[in-house]
């Protein structure tokens, strides 16, 4: 059993974790882009400090803007994935779905997107066309138009071929309130399908690992799935799409924001055998690996079964599962009950096991 001195140390560590982060690094490193702790520090201690305003402060997937009674959701995302084409998709499709999903997590119906292209001199126009076509197709599937765009070309040696930025605008129903502040002890944690498919597919597509695994990115637009979920129950407290940093990172953000604990059940987490195998070999925890077509939902206990059934009846939610529960204690921490019968902390990601996956 944990002894009293150890408890004191643990409490000191928790107090420390809750302090406002300070940016001590003199230079930006890859860790600042990984979606984990360093990214958080950069966002909160640099961007929020300089740009801070009530719209930005919640740091959700999309910001909510109200004008004349209309509630709009606005979001932006940049894509630097390498390789540009990968099994299951490409940078164009990813850029459309990523922004559509950020809007969907705010409960918004996507209205339109913008697209910015930063292209390296010498980039084949055939590839650029292929990517634009795939963006068009993805936008069609998501029922949204790319309404504005911009192109910049930079000298050879910069931008590594192509970077894409997309921004999105959506409209949110008047009575809809999705927020970590609504999370209560006893709520259930749901995921809409298998975890880690996108991140592992990209790593394998890069070919550095010399692993032969057939695995496709899960990139997909989730606005339709979210619409059905919100239509079926009003018990949804909060939605997140577990992209960079994976499920572990978004649940940590929610646990801290809500000042509640989350306990996951390892046996309930849906994972493809290919992802489990590749993660075992690489020593990576699939809970930290990025998804591009999955959502995590916190749902009131009485609505959980209905929400699960609704997710499962949709093609993008067929493997949905209830993976955990919100608890009063330990506040601000995510724990995992292991298959083995033990338990452990699931902390935020430190460092970057998989750079440039989106």
């Amino acid at each position, binding site marked *: *059993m*944990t002894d009293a*001195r*150890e*408890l004191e*140390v*643990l409490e*000191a*560590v928790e107090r*420390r974790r809750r302090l406002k982060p300070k940016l*001590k*690094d003199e*230079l*930006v*490193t*890859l*860790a600042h882009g990984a979606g984990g*702790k*360093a990214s958080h*520090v950069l966002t909160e201690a640099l961007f929020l400090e300089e740009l801070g305003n009530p719209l930005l402060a919640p740091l959700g997937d999309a910001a909510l803007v109200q004008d004349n009674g209309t509630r709009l959701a606005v979001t932006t995302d940049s894509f630097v994935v390498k390789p540009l084409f990968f099994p299951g998709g490409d940078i164009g499709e990813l850029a459309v779905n990523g922004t559509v999903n950020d809007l969907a997590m705010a409960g918004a119906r996507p209205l339109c997107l913008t697209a910015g292209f930063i292209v390296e001199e010498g980039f084949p126009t055939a590839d650029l066309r292929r990517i634009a076509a795939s963006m068009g197709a993805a936008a069609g599937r998501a029922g949204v138009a790319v309404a504005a765009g911009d192109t910049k070309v930079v000298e050879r040696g910069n931008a590594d071929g192509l970077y894409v930025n997309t921004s999105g605008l959506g409209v949110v129903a008047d009575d809809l309130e999705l927020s970590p502040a609504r999370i209560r002890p006893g709520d259930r944690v749901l995921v809409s399908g298998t975890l880690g498919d996108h991140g592992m597919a990209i790593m394998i597509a890069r070919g*550095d*690992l010399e692993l032969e695994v057939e695995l496709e990115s899960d990139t997909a637009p989730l606005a339709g799935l979210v619409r059905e979920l919100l239509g079926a129950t009003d018990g949804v407290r909060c939605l997140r799409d577990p992209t960079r940093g994976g499920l572990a990172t978004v649940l940590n953000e929610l646990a801290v924001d809500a000042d509640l604990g989350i306990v996951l059940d390892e046996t309930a987490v849906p994972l493809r*055998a290919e992802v*489990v*195998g590749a993660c*075992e070999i*690489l*020593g990576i925890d699939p809970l930290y690996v990025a998804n591009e077509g999955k959502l995590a939902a916190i749902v009131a206990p009485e609505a959980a079964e209905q929400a699960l059934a609704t997710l499962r009846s949709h093609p993008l939610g067929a493997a949905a599962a209830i993976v955990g529960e919100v608890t009063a204690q*330990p506040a601000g*921490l995510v*724990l995992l*009950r*292991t*298959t*083995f*019968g*033990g*338990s*452990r*902390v699931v*902390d935020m990601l*430190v*460092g970057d*096991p998989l750079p440039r996956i989106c």
Partner: protein
Amino acid sequence: MRFVDEYRSGDLARRVSEEIETLLEPGRSYKFMEVCGGHTHAIYRHGIEDLLPSPIDLVHGPGCPVCVIPMGRVDDAIALAERPEVTFTTFGDMLRVPGAAGSLLDAKARGADVRMVYSPLDALKVARENPEREVVFFAIGFETTTPSTALTLLRARAEGIRNFFVFCNHVTILPAIRAILDSPDLRLDGFVGPGHVSTVIGIGPYSFIARDYRKPLVVAGFEPLDVLQAVYMILRQLTEGRSEVENQYGRVVRSAGNQRALETIAETMELRTTFEWRGLGFISQSALKLRPEFADWDAELRYEVPGVRVADPKACQCGEVLKGVIKPWECKVFGTACTPERPIGTCMVSSEGACAAYYNYGRFARRREAVEA
């Protein structure tokens, strides 16, 4: 997943846990050291302590390859990486290890050509594909990783690749275990022996532990059930008054080890007179360097390596943690000044480091009543 799930079964775990309970002497407490960082990681990742009765205390040992690299060697690595002609290749874990002035990741952000690789053969591939660059591989690790460095050297020679160099920091586990056994700080009842190291060296070399120090040692695998069974086997020895070297990891470890791997090491490397271990100080004949026949591939001969010995930061107690004298949370800077995102000591960096494993996985009030009841 087959061959993994079987070793993570909760039902079997509870049964072994009950068996362990029956072997405990009333009123006695037990301290077992898991030598290898892979075990430390597994213990926290699977929550194995939840399944052990409270009189059993698992003490974390020195077998974490990243943790034992002293600060001076990190600075040497950074000095090599910052040379304009050098492409520096390293395992990912080493990127964030702090030297006296930052880490390799910081050097990379300043412009050094530092690349992460998964094996030394990947580093050799970088050399082959970039003949105009001088590619240095930061070789670290115990007998587990030494054979792959050795094999890569043989391949570099066979292919005549002359722009590939090894910065050798390979260490050997036995002198470290002996140093711990000779240290007066610690009273241990037995060892969970390293699994992967033993696939190379076999189980014979541990016999002095059982014979001279009268401590049981059970070589174990890295799945949670492996560790639990090893604890059971150590307790069995204690109950029966034996101290022997036993092999729980028979599905992988052969008693004689891997002769071919040992020959490959012997062909390419030889013992250094002495080598500094982080926190443990200089231990004689505890590390390897390249043999003179491989001088052309030796980064320490090719370049001016600063070789300055840097004392650990005063607040850092990695040495005590590596020897198992204190638990990670007993270190004065644990989780406050020293965290995985801003580590002071190596034990907080590597996923196999005791502090990182405890911070990332074990940092909450454990309740063991369920097992004790």
